[in-house]
């Protein structure tokens, strides 16, 4: 099965982290990503620019409306994702728990919708 692991954490808090710690976390991310690539779980994954760069788009009555900022103001923000292949939810949870940000923020695990052909 495929799962999207969405990484949520508080951007403002994260921005306050000192350079050395930030380097360490980055290194942890690299080794985690390498690990799930080698185990065949990795499908895709990216880090996102902060929500200050976000634009939200809606089309109403044929008109495109854009607003500055994310869709919803929340305490933790979507900061990145992995798309993984895993045997089942237990395996997906186990992988999610190894994402470095799981220790600071939260990882939402969502199965990918499969259309019956």
């Amino acid at each position: 099965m495929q799962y999207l692991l969405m990484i949520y954490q508080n951007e403002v808090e994260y921005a306050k982290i000192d350079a050395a710690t930030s380097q360490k976390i980055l290194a942890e991310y690299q080794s985690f990503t390498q690990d799930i690539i080698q185990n065949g779980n990795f499908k895709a994954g990216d880090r996102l620019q902060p929500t200050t760069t976000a634009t939200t788009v809606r089309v109403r009555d044929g008109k495109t409306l854009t607003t500055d900022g994310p869709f919803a103001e929340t305490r933790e923000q979507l900061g990145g994702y992995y798309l993984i292949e895993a045997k089942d939810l237990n395996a997906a949870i186990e992988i999610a728990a190894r994402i470095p940000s799981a220790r600071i923020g939260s990882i939402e695990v969502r199965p990918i919708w499969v259309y019956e052909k």
Partner: protein
Amino acid sequence: MTPGEIDKIFRDEAGRALATLIRLVGDFDLAEDALQDAFAVALERWACEVPDNPRAWFVNVAKHKAIDRIRRQAVFRGKQQALVHELELNALGPDEPTATLDDDMLRLIFTCCHPAFAPEVQVALTLRTVCGLSTMQVARAFLVGEEAMAQRLVRAKQKIRLAGIPYEVPEREMLAPRLDGVLAVIYLVFTEGYVATEGADLMRPDLASEAIRLGRLLNRLMPDRAGIKGLLALMLLHDARRAGRQTPAGDIVLLEEQDRSLWHRAQIDEGLRLVEHALRVPGRPQPYAVQAAIAALHARAPSFEETDWPQIAGLYEVLLRINPSPVIELNHAAALSMVDGPARALDLVDAIAARGGLRGYELLPAVRADLLRRLGRTEEAREAYRAATVATQLEPLRRLYARRMREMG
């Protein structure tokens, strides 16, 4: 055989038959529907002749019903074809090893108690599928409407399928934490049966019985686990006092007033034996086993006054070390009041209240009220009883507090 007798066999076997069927057909809903089909067939055929092994009969007939159902579905394609083929090959013989069937039951229990479900969903799924309660009965257990409960169960089963919650017993390092989750579900069912959260009745014995049944089942499937034995002992010992805990009119009889000859002796003996086993299992002491040891001291005491209060207070201190919680602190304070007197206990309770860890816990004002009453601080006691009355949704508790206030004059 009468329909009533067939229904009884079905109720006894349904949980286990379902557990195996889910493994075979890989889908909760399909397994449940097929099992109901098989039950309908049993009602027709068993009037004349009952099979030797009803469970294997249910599984095999239901399996064929499942195949029929899959074939009837509009979209019958590759994946389902393969499933039907596999199902036709794997007939469940009467000689199926018991270990496989036991594993199926454990798979079902661990799946229903998966931490990806909210606790109340875990309880609902367990009562519905493992215990075989009807949706109506589960709804009543939660004091919600049948429609709302049916929705909740549908969503839960959908999540099993769509999120890929595996039908398996967790392995190695995952087993211990997941087992704790299962025990928590069983204990939740039991406590709701022991002292209901709200309503007209103090107890809901059907829920307590279901929890004990689950505890027995788990203890048989996974022997030598201190946590399971401890929980089962705890439930048996608490439940053994059932007949003494209320008047025929449904009023609460406090532990100090209970006629101990009404307690269920055989059940107490069983509980006591289990506590000893639980405490002998190597490893660090399990919270349920320690709680059961406390219940055992109450069960053994010839009277309220002759209870071994110092040892009970000591066991609560052990609990506070291995599993600290404000509720345990409150119980510890209540036990200590019987050793060091109510004044010192009141200091502890006020300290807990000042920290605010028990906000909303309805029994805190009740414990305070009792201590104040024993200290002769009538006005403060009255105020605390009023707070306790507001805090509870349970009618018998409200009547108990009213009685205490009347007694104080």
